[in-house]
């Protein structure tokens, strides 16, 4: 018996004593993962519109994406993912109902009106890659955000592909202001507390003095975006491809940094 054959035999032998779960976990623990937050103030279709477009665009780059959406107002991203009205409007009829579906080999989607309703997916991605981005898109609520954000961070652990992973901290936060709530709240102070390392992008009217409290980058969401809110398709175009590249550069450099830390 050659050494190679011996090794193969040993692997097969070891396999008998490893549960499927253990094997899955050992494979999954190498996934590079990031959490992205999209928070939208006021009742606005921008939450579902931006989240659906961005998640499709990232998934098309051979990266697994889990879109986790929460918010009271319509539309939810199911509208843009061309769900039947009976399906995407189900949470409007029954507030405790979830929308949960794998949309492709590399994109899965879950929606609930409130974060406490979220539950894990039963199945993993059909296509196993080494990268995974969780996008949590939600409404910015007035008043104290602490409990709400804690809940969203806790949920991120449900969707992590890494075995035994605890909750993630956002690497990127996108804030879209469609109301006036950003002018009188400690949002940016809270961000510094929750995600001090996050890269922050702001779109819409955000006072410079507020945005200046952290290194927020302005996002010109009207440039290169075909804003057809009523069209039942995930939006696409130069804005999404350009911003996805920027986003992946930021996240990619984080992943490289973490890999170096592990090697050390």
């Amino acid at each position, binding site marked *: 018996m050659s050494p190679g054959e011996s090794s193969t035999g040993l692997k097969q032998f070891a396999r008998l004593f490893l549960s499927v779960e253990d094997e899955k976990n050992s494979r999954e623990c190498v996934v590079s993962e990031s959490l992205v937050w999209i928070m939208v103030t*006021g*009742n606005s279709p921008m939450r579902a519109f931006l989240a659906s477009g961005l998640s499709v665009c990232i998934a098309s780059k051979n990266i697994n994406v889990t879109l986790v959406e929460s918010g009271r107002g*319509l539309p939810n991203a199911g509208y843009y993912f061309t769900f039947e009205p*009976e399906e995407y*409007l189900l949470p*409007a*009829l029954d507030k405790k109902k979830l929308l949960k579906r794998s949309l492709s080999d590399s994109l899965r989607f879950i929606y609930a009106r409130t974060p406490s309703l979220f539950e894990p997916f039963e199945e993993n991605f059909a296509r196993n890659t080494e990268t995974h981005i969780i996008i949590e898109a939600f409404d910015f609520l007035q008043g104290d955000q602490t409990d709400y954000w804690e809940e969203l961070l806790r949920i991120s652990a449900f969707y992590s592909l890494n075995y035994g992973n605890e909750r993630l901290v956002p690497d990127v936060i996108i804030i879209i202001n469609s109301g006036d709530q950003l002018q009188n709240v400690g949002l940016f102070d809270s961000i510094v507390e929750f995600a001090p390392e996050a890269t922050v992008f702001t779109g819409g009217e955000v006072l410079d003095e507020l945005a200046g409290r952290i290194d927020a980058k302005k996002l010109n969401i009207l440039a290169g975006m075909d*804003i057809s*809110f*009523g069209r039942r398709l995930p939006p696409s175009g130069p804005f999404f491809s350009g911003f996805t590249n920027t986003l992946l550069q930021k996240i990619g450099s984080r992943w490289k940094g973490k890999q170096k830390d592990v090697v050390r």
Partner: protein
Amino acid sequence: MSSDNNINSSIAVLGRLIMKKAVRSLFSNFCSEIMQFSNQLSKEFTRFEITFYSGDGILLKVSPYSELFLVSIGENPSIDVRVLDRGGFVRGLDLSLKHYLDSLSEV
């Protein structure tokens, strides 16, 4: 908050025109969903209907009757949806949402 309470109680009063409890519940749920489309939507109540509108061209009228409620979407001509059950609710809300989103896109 008190303004929201006033609106909710006005909707509840209008809803009393509907005899069936299940349809009445759909009526208040429907109005609540419409109000959450946007903070900018204005509401106008008469004794027999509620109208949601905005300067962006959004116009939705919801009129309760004893057995059902009628959703009129847009104007000249409007699309009318009779809501007697969950199927009507879904159709009315889906078309109302499409009307709202299309109106936003045209601005």
